[in-house]
């Protein structure tokens, strides 16, 4: 009976959907208010209660204020420059994609979570579907594995089961980026022995899997080894995003295709 249930679910995904729509959803309902209460409590503590040694601290701060006023004048020019650069570097969504923000509310939870995942506070109601790319402005985080209505599980790129087609930014050598666990370096598989690739080179999504748009930064090459017995290089890389400290992420959504005109006029085909 168990095997029948298991194979039926493997074929249809009905029970996975049910668990995501109920169990994962309930987890979101429990954790989100708790996070809000914790944030409010921290703010209240910092503002009103943590007053021990305030007078002594006040004297010290007055001295510091004089020093910092002078320093501020010199930093102001740098700040203006930083603002300009930040505007330039603001994350642009790839063509054909839009993005929305989400908060990380939990890491992997429970005995049924053997994979490296995080839980975010957006789900199907926010147009999050399975395989929705999850990124930060610094680089790729992973993709949505399961989606509830208002919460989703995201498979991190450091998981062993995450396999992303990549190419080098400089030399355009291709390979498959595979995770090796939270504390281990990533591995780039199937890079031919004669492929040009440098230590320090940034790896980008190649777009071949049709999950991620092409050109998103993923990782930086940290080591390249040649093997006597393999046809491929052993390439190690580190993620560009610190996955342990994630608090907010961006979700990439494909833009809906334009509706063809009703009067039979020809539709412009991209690239044609």
């Amino acid at each position: 009976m168990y095997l029948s249930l298991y194979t039926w679910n493997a074929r249809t995904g009905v029970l996975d959907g049910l668990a995501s729509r109920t169990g994962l959803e309930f987890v979101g309902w429990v954790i989100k208010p708790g996070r809000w209460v914790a944030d409010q409590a921290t703010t209240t503590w910092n503002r009103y209660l943590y007053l021990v040694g305030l007078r002594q601290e006040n004297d010290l701060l007055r001295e510091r204020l004089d020093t910092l006023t002078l320093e501020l004048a010199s930093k102001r020019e740098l700040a203006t420059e930083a603002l300009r650069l930040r505007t330039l570097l603001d994350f642009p969504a790839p063509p054909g994609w839009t993005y929305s923000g989400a908060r990380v509310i939990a890491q992997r939870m429970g005995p049924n979570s053997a994979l490296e995942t995080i839980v975010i506070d957006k789900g199907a109601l926010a147009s999050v579907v399975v395989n929705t790319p999850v990124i930060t402005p610094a680089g790729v985080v992973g993709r949505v594995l399961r989606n509830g209505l208002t919460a989703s599980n995201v498979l991190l790129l450091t998981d062993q089961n995450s396999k992303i087609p990549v190419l080098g930014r400089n030399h355009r050598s291709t390979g498959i980026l595979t995770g090796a666990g939270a504390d281990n370096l990533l591995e780039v598989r199937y890079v031919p022995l004669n492929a040009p690739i440098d230590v320090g080179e940034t790896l980008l999504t190649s777009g071949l899997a049709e999950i991620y748009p092409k050109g998103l930064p993923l990782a930086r090459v940290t080591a390249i080894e040649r093997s006597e017995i393999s046809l491929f290089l052993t390439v190690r890389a580190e993620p560009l995003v610190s996955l342990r400290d994630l608090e907010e992420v961006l979700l990439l959504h494909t833009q809906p295709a334009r509706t063809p005109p009703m009067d039979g006029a020809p539709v412009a085909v991209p690239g044609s």
Partner: protein
Amino acid sequence: MQPMVFWLIYTALGIWAQRLIPGVDIFAPALVVCLQLRRVTQFFWLALAWIILQEGMGNLPFGNLLLWYGGLVLFFVVGRWLFESRNLIFVFIIGIFMGSWHYLLTQLMADLQNLEVLRGQLLVESFYQAVLFPLVWAVTFNIYKRRVPDAGTI
């Protein structure tokens, strides 16, 4: 306190505890408490709710939790032939079983689904499961006994 209220609070706290300790099941000791106190109806509804909850928050395909709790019940029933159900040594042995069962079952299901898991990490989680099980059981059993009427005495 009504049992339903008690278990709702327990579920909320359990979710937060599982958020802090990845890979560990905080609900299994509570199911053992229900079995020990012969709360069969409560056991049934709690097991059903927690299976769906744990399957939802987890990241492996559906089916793991049925075997996980199925193994727990089977071990409890078989173990009662040798031990008195509320015997502390028996609870420790269930903890060790759940730790081992976590390792074996996750490895088995991952293989079945052609997934790779980190064995070192799994081993650490199994150890935590084995150690935390009697502690969580002791806390749950005593609070349930005091807070829920006609819960029986040890």
